[in-house]
């Protein structure tokens, strides 16, 4: 809880209502959410060294208070298999970020360098998210990723805080629930790990009501007994100075 508060305080001091990726992962970890191994580095050499420690392949992402949508700024490189590739990727994303800043006419802060993370093995994609409803307050959303959420809108909601029964009901009531039971010869997915993620996110929001939105997207769900990983996490917070702080 303390970690989250410190991170939110610093974000607001820097004029951000979003937290940086390593900060989001720090908060997730503090609440017991499973995340891939990660680190940060401010130089190409340090990035390569830390990547080696994490183990290849890795993902590299720009870390800057001025960039929320990292892909749009050419700030993401995936599946990097060697120290050489990491070094090269580091300078590429820094160049891209400078270019992005010029196009937008803003000075992009690059002092934080990059975020390095284990390139997680693909699992069944799920989304756990949080939205703040104007009438009912915080609600947690769950759905399967990809076309299930994009096209079929196959998602379900519960108000926070949730009970474990709520979490299990959510998982079994989406239309594509059968996918998690194992289809086409696949092993059943680790639903217990998913329940833990939902409960942890619920707790995180209960203790930090200044959170406006969360996206754990994608979250990879592996076969039963093998857990899950929150691969990408986005946390947006309320700006106390302007209650209706825009999230985009």
């Amino acid at each position, binding site marked *: 809880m303390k970690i989250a508060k410190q991170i939110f305080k610093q974000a607001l001091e820097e004029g951000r209502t979003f937290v940086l990726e390593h900060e989001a992962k720090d908060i997730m970890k503090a609440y017991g959410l499973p995340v891939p191994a990660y680190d940060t580095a401010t130089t190409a050499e340090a990035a390569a060294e830390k990547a080696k420690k994490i183990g290849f392949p890795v993902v590299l992402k720009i870390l800057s208070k001025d960039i929320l949508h990292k892909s749009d700024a050419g700030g993401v490189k995936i599946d990097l298999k060697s120290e050489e590739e990491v070094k090269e990727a580091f300078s590429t994303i820094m160049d891209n970020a400078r270019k992005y800043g010029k196009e937008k006419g803003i000075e992009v802060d690059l002092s934080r360098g990059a975020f390095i993370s284990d390139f997680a093995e693909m699992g069944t994609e799920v989304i756990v998210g949080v939205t703040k409803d*104007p009438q009912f307050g915080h*609600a947690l959303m769950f759905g399967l990723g990809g076309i299930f959420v994009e096209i079929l809108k196959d998602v379900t*909601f519960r108000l926070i805080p949730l009970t474990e029964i709520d979490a299990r009901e959510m998982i079994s009531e989406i239309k594509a629930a059968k996918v998690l039971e194992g289809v086409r010869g696949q092993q059943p997915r680790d639903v217990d790990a998913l329940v833990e993620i939902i409960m942890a996110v619920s707790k995180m929001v209960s203790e930090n009501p200044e959170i406006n939105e969360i996206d754990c997207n994608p979250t990879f769900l592996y076969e039963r007994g093998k857990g899950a990983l929150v691969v990408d996490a986005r946390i947006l917070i309320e700006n106390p100075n302007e209650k209706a702080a825009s999230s985009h």
Partner: protein
Amino acid sequence: MLVCDEIKGIDVFFNARNVAIYGASASQNSVGQAIVQNFIKPQYTGKVYAVNPKYTNVLGVPCYPSLQEIPESVDLVVVAIPARLAPRVFEDIGKKGAKAAIVISGGFSETGPKGAELENEVVKLGKKYGTRIIGPNCVGVIDTSTHVDTFFLPEYRCARPKASNVANIALVSQSGAFAAAIADWTSELGLGVSKIISLGNKCDVDDDDLLCYLGDDSSTQVICYYTEGYDGNKGRSFFDTAREITPHKPVLVVKSGRGSRAKAAASSHTGSLAGLDSVADAAYKQSGVIRADNFDQMFDMAKALAMQPPAEGDRVLMITNGGGLGVMTTDALEALGLTIPNPSSDLESKLREDLPAYCAFGNPFDVVGDAGADRYDAIFREAIPSGEYDIFVVGMLLQTPSLGMEITNIIANYQKQSGKPFVVISMGGGFTTKAGEIMELMGVPTFATGEKGALAAKALARYGEIRLGDKFNKSAGAKKS
């Protein structure tokens, strides 16, 4: 109950014995006259006073320039005056010590910032003097037992619902027009009504207060809501209150603004915020509130829930004397997610002993067209103690000459003795409708179509699930693992 500590302040709206009508009027067809008329009907046994500096009496009721001149204390004030006079009127109300006021007048927050300012002033004065306020911009309340009735709609245009000896529902509506239409409609539906409340702008008394009050009200068996949305965090507090109430009493809601177009209309209508509808859906589900798509559905469900105990499981036996009704009804039951299991071989052999071989011994169980009430009797006698069914849906087609009116007795007796929920479907014209009314007087809800009956059965199962939680015997979609 933790969340409900203000029940007392609400009670006076329904049990007021000294009522003053502020803005009472001697002119024909006016709001201020229609309300006075309600309180001089013989059913209302309390006292009524008119307030208007223009008159000394209205329809024979003594009229005073302000509340202060009324010789006795006043507990409820009905306010029907132009909005701009409201602050002065609320000073008067406060000083008189009246504990409740219903503001019928419009011209407040629903009209813009100027009106909102007036509404704020009214709220402030209410707080200062401890006056609870319903409205503004509403038609107020009807209580069918005390006959407190502030609806300014003449009775020949808007009939009033009645209390039933069997069971009653209460309706809370954000919209005054709907409250009136439903009052008028339910007067003909044969559905017992305890109270109807129109909340309007909800400047003080809101959905929550009434949920607490009605949850504790012994004359109300089911609570129904029509809402367009909740202001600020009121959605969350309704959710918290509903969680406390729904394990004891069924709560149904029709919430408009499901689509994005309807949403825009809702927020301009009463200035309420409409959130993501799927969040509202989740909130209702999580708090045990049953959401209906429309009023037809809400009243079908409410009738069943008011008259019958909740089901302990989702297994339905459908008995019919007409094949078509059986198929239509079981189709509808299945679509609603209920289970329709065939009788076990044990039960079937027992039934075969008592019934002709040309009956259809399945589910639906067809006793066929030449059945008398004795065949239904035989089925209930065996099927109820078998424990194979949680809900009994009985098709009673009275067009056949062989089915006598004793069927109503048989159904009512088995229902009472077993404590299991029963739903009757009686399709047809005049004779059937009368029979349905008799069935309902005996306590068993009766519906005109299989689909309506199926929905009623679904409501009994859903509420059983809400009340019993894990102990509810759910066989539909049960996991095989």
